């Protein structure tokens, strides 16, 4: 035998050069395939996991604090003119400006402190008071010992000779260089407020005070502004620390050093009356400074106890504006000076130790607290973009670069109630953008999270009973032949694009429901009762008829029944409305129940999103019930239990972890669903569980706002945070569901 083989089969040489080469190539291919697949596989998996990290990467800066670093320090420019009364810079932080005690305006380079220009005070009298209209209007006021007031405006003219930016500072005097006579006394304290149509100046001397109003009127012929001056004496408030004219020039606030605030009503100049009095400080703390926050709505009061409190007008039940304490922040020692950010609701405090703290009023967040100077520091100022901070102390001026991108966001402003300016009480509000610049952004994620859960809740309310009951029947009672037909139909339901469901919900179902509101609720009662009644009648029918319907085909005969019942409900809807709700159920809901009714409401969303969630829950539940080992059910049946008893006592408890995971996964889908909510609700971020009102969900909010938010702004990052919250929520929910399911599979794999 072996000889035969030897003869027939020629000697095989597996090591010919060609074969060796071939093997080498094959081995090389194999190795490169291994490496290639490993690299490819890992990179795909990494790319997918990158989502999580990228979202986090975009969110992180929100919660990191501010950073400051020193850019320059130099002697006080034009030191001989005395210390500064006011300090600021222009937009680019290239040119600094200070107002000296002598009343001169000194422009200097922020980089090295060299004087660029010094503008002498045009009035030859001693400057005894100084006031700033607001940082953003660039309007300054000087009060003199002879009772005059001069208004000056600093401006910066930017030109680009040979492509390089050049900034030339100028000072203008919008009301002339002669000054306005505001009183017949040496002015000690000054407050001013300017607007399109009038200018108000409050001045206070050693024993007298007065208020001056300049009404502006544009002459139609010459187009020149004509001024009408009115001066009126004011009741004198002794020991005045600060005065403020409100943004709308209706009220004058006078704070005494001891901390009592007197509010005057300026609306009628012939009858200026005392409106109210408040205590601004606690204990014997004395008022250091009182200034408006951006927007001239909130008054910030700093005192010697280190407390900075925020106050604004809140309308009470009688629609009266009452100055109300809102919130405060505290430093351990007395505040020396306070500076407002020009474009945000932020401020910085300088205390007696030379410690600088930067806060944001809305979020009550302290972003930095650092000792940058010594006890001699007395003045701080922000650049307009709040990216630089100037400190004046005995050694001169220090310039710090400030990196403070997102002070308006804090954990509490995102998830707690916040008292926003102009609101009657602390609220959860989402309002990310508005037309004007001094808008206070309202970034509370609560209404969105609430809306998300509300939508998911109503969707689950609709989907869970239908899907689980349907799955129970399909898996356990249904004839296999019918089951093979029903399952693809339900799975097709899953493949339906949600944009179609949303469109039908918004444009077909919402108006339909509004017309037939009575039907929507009557169907809840009529449908189950009708089915039961039909089932009972069916059980009483003669056997010959009953046997026409094989076991497990009940849904087939129920389809016409359900259609009929549904049609009956819709047809009865006007009749019900007529007999029980005076013909208009909508107005009954609004007037008698006192519930707001939106056409696109939670009921519509619940129905449409329930529709989208049913197939998910259905197929997983069906799977779980179907995979309950037959031995268990057969044992139960053999012991004499009915089918239903077996179902409830044996099958359901066994499959319950699977059903639980089905509900979880369905919930995850409902929470993240975007298009249905976007189209079937009004997208108003309200916090109300009312079924007849809409909501705005996190996902819909992303779809609406992400495209128009400015890259890397706080708004943008908060939207990323919303996306991250959605991501984590669904990820966790799905992981729990998946683990439960795998556990279940392992448990019954052995049975």
């Amino acid at each position, binding site marked *: 035998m072996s000889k035969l083989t030897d003869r027939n089969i020629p000697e095989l040489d597996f090591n010919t050069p060609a074969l060796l080469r071939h093997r080498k190539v094959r081995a090389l*291919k194999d190795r490169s395939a291994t490496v290639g697949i490993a690299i490819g596989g890992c990179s795909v998996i990494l790319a997918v996991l990158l989502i999580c990290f990228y979202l986090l990467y975009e969110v992180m800066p929100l919660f990191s604090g501010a950073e400051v670093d020193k850019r320059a320090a130099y002697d006080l420019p034009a030191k001989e003119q005395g210390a500064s009364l006011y300090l600021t810079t222009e937009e680019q932080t290239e040119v600094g400006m200070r107002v000296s005690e002598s009343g001169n305006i000194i422009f200097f380079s922020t980089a090295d402190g060299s004087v660029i220009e010094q503008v002498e005070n045009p009035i030859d009298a001693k400057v005894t008071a100084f006031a700033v209209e607001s940082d953003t209007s660039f309007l300054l006021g000087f009060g003199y010992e002879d009772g005059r007031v001069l208004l000056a405006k600093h401006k910066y003219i930017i030109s680009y000779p040979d492509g390089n930016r050049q900034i030339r500072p100028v000072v203008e005097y919008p009301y002339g260089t002669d000054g306005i006579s505001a009183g017949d006394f040496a002015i000690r304290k000054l407050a001013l407020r300017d607007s399109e149509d009038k200018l108000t100046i409050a001045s206070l001397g050693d024993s007298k005070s007065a208020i001056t109003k300049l009404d502006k009127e544009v002459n139609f012929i010459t187009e020149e502004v004509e001024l009408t001056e009115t001066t009126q004496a004011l009741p004198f408030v002794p020991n005045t620390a600060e005065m403020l004219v409100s943004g709308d020039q209706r009220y004058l606030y006078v704070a005494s050093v001891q901390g009592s605030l007197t509010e005057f009503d300026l609306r009628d100049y012939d009858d200026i009356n005392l409106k109210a009095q408040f205590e601004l400080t606690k204990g014997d703390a004395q008022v250091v400074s009182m200034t408006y926050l951006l927007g001239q709505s909130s008054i910030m009061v700093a005192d010697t106890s280190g407390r900075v409190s925020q106050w604004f007008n809140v309308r009470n039940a009688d629609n009266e504006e009452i100055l109300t304490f809102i919130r405060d922040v505290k430093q351990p020692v007395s505040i020396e000076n306070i500076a407002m950010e020009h474009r945000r609701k932020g401020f910085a405090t300088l205390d007696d130790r030379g410690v600088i703290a930067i806060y944001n009023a809305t979020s009550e967040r302290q972003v930095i607290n650092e000792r940058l100077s010594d006890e001699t520091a007395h003045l701080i100022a922000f650049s307009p973009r709040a990216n630089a901070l100037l400190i004046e102390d005995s050694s001169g001026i220090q310039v710090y670069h400030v990196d403070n991108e997102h002070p308006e966001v804090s954990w509490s402003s995102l998830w707690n109630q916040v008292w926003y300016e102009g609101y009657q009480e602390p609220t959860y509000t989402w309002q990310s953008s508005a037309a004007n610049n001094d808008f206070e952004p309202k970034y509370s994620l609560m209404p969105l999270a609430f809306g998300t859960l509300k939508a998911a809740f109503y969707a689950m309310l609709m989907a869970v009973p239908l899907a689980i009951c349907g799955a129970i029947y399909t898996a356990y009672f249904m004839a296999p032949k019918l089951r093979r037909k029903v399952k693809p139909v339900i799975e097709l339901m899953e493949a339906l694009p949600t944009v179609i469901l949303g469109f039908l919900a918004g444009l077909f179902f919402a108006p339909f429901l509004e017309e037939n509101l009575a039907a929507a609720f009557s169907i809840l009662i009529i449908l189950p009762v009708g089915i039961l009644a039909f089932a009972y009648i069916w059980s009483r029918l003669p056997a010959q008829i009953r046997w026409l319907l094989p076991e497990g085909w009940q*849904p087939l005969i129920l389809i016409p029944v359900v259609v009929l019942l549904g049609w009956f409900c819709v047809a009865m809807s006007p009749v019900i409305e007529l007999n029980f709700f005076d013909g208009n159920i909508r107005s009954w809901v609004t007037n008698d129940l006192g519930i707001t009714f939106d056409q696109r409401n939670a009921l519509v969303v619940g129905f449409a999103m329930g529709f989208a969630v049913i197939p998910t829950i259905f197929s997983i539940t069906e799977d779980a019930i179907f995979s309950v080992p037959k031995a268990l059910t057969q044992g139960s049946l053999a012991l004499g239990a009915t089918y239903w008893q077996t179902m409830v006592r044996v099958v359901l408890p066994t499959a319950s972890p699977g059903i639980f995971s089905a509900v979880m996964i369905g919930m995850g889908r409902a929470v993240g669903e975007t298009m249905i909510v976007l189209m079937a609700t009004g997208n108003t971020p309200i916090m109300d569980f009312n079924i007849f009102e809409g909501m705005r969900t996190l996902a819909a909010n*992303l779809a609406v706002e992400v495209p128009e938010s400015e890259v890397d702004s706080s708004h943008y990052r908060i939207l990323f945070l919303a996306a991250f919250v959605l991501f984590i929520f*669904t*990820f966790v929910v799905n992981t729990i569901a998946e683990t439960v399911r795998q556990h279940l599979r392992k448990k019954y794999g052995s049975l």
Partner: protein
Amino acid sequence: MKKTSVSGWVKSGEPWVWLNAGAVAISVIMVVGLLLLIAVRGLGHFWPADIVEGRYALPGNESYKIVAEQVESVDVPSAQLIEAGIEVDESITVMQRTLMKVGNRDVYGADFRWVIDNYMEEVTRPEMLFAAERREWGNMYGYLLAVKENGNIVASTEDKAPTDSSLATWATLQERIERALAIHEEIYQVEKHDIGKINYGLERLRLQQRGYVLENQLTPERMADLESERAVFDEEYKVLQQKLIDLYTQINRDTILVEAMDGTIIEQSVAKIVRAYLPNSMSVLDKLGFYGSKLWEFLSDEPREANTEGGVFPAIFGTVMMVLLMTVLVTPFGVVAAVYLREYATQGVLTRVIRIAVNNLAGVPSIVYGVFGLGFFIYFMGSSIDQAFFPEALPSPTFGTGGLMWASITLALLTVPVVIVATEEGLSRIPRNVREGSLALGATKAETLWRVVLPMASPAIMTGVILAVARAAGEVAPLMLVGVVKLAPSLPLDGNYPFIHLDQKFMHLGFHIYDVGFQSPNVEAARPLVYATALLLVIVIALLNFSAVTIRNHLREKYKSLEM
């Protein structure tokens, strides 16, 4: 079987079983009902509706004539009407209200009117009432009075019944419409293709010049070259412009005089008419023909009038392009990742964790992928690409804004878990001994994979890919952030180099539904079109899903003998 008492019946658990059966029935009814609703509304849109004429008078008001298409009817309780200030007979409790499409938006301001059926009188369907679809202001309804050429009447009639003169005038109008349509097609060709090409060329020259400037290489010779090329384009443009002017004078030659429902006579330019027809005198066969042409227009034409009329071809095209690109991306990567996880990686805790993670990513809301796509791909990678490769186009972004490429990549990322999960499942089904047999015969691991394992797993891969495609085709939310627009000026595939414009924004069927249904100025008029678009999308997705099932079954059959 003896008859049971009620309590016995309840005890047997039968009621519960019936209730569960009811849940199945309700679910099935909902699915089928929804599909029927879309189908009926979507397909019904193309059927030419009769135009009715009648007198309408609310009690106490003067009567007026109405000429309109009936759109839909609803029942309203009389009480609601009384509340709205309409006098209603006490004995009637429910009345029918009909939405009428009166058209002629240029004259009446709105296309639609609600009328209460009980107060419509003398309803007739005159044969010579015609409907005209226009390029602006929606449909026109009325009687044709005359056809004018350069302001001179060439055919006219005073009859509102089908007489010789009215039919002759009608025939003249049809001829003129044919002619205008031909000219319109020519104008379209010139504006879209010829001038589009020139604009594209000019833009390319501008970018080239800017590129030279940025690199400090703009020599006088190059400048001269650019200028001469530009001069050629300008020359061509002048010729085309003259041609356009001629075409426009030609197309604006004809007008018609139409008597509207309130007796006003409207002069309408024939150039703006897309088609005119007499629905009341059409036979069923005519209507079928009309239906076919409308359906074809819907599938092959561009949208008109802020997407509320015309076709959805650009949206179909955009959807297909995007899905194809996505498939090209998702298939290899998904399969490689699955093969790595199942065949190459050491099975352990880490692979199990990764498996669960990948599985769960399929459940992460699609909008999150959209946000990620916008932040990472567009703002981060896109702007880097722009700075590196397209500095001459800045500050207008090339890839730094939403576009076809980013949309495809985002959706690929969204659907890659589907492919991975399906492929892995397919790989896990392949018996160990098949692999071992191949290895025993001396094949390397790569050869085993390529020749044995992957072919056997192909049904599963195919299923995964098709499911991914079906999901991608219906997904809208992420696309809204990464490159879909309501109206794209041109298709992402055209005759200009480089032919496929990956940076261009595109239209999408799903977004079209959202946009036309919710952002359109005239929702009522656009609604039928939205139903038709929805139907189209449902059909596409249902076909994809069914083909996934069929392919899976077919391939399973093929490899059945191996799966022992």
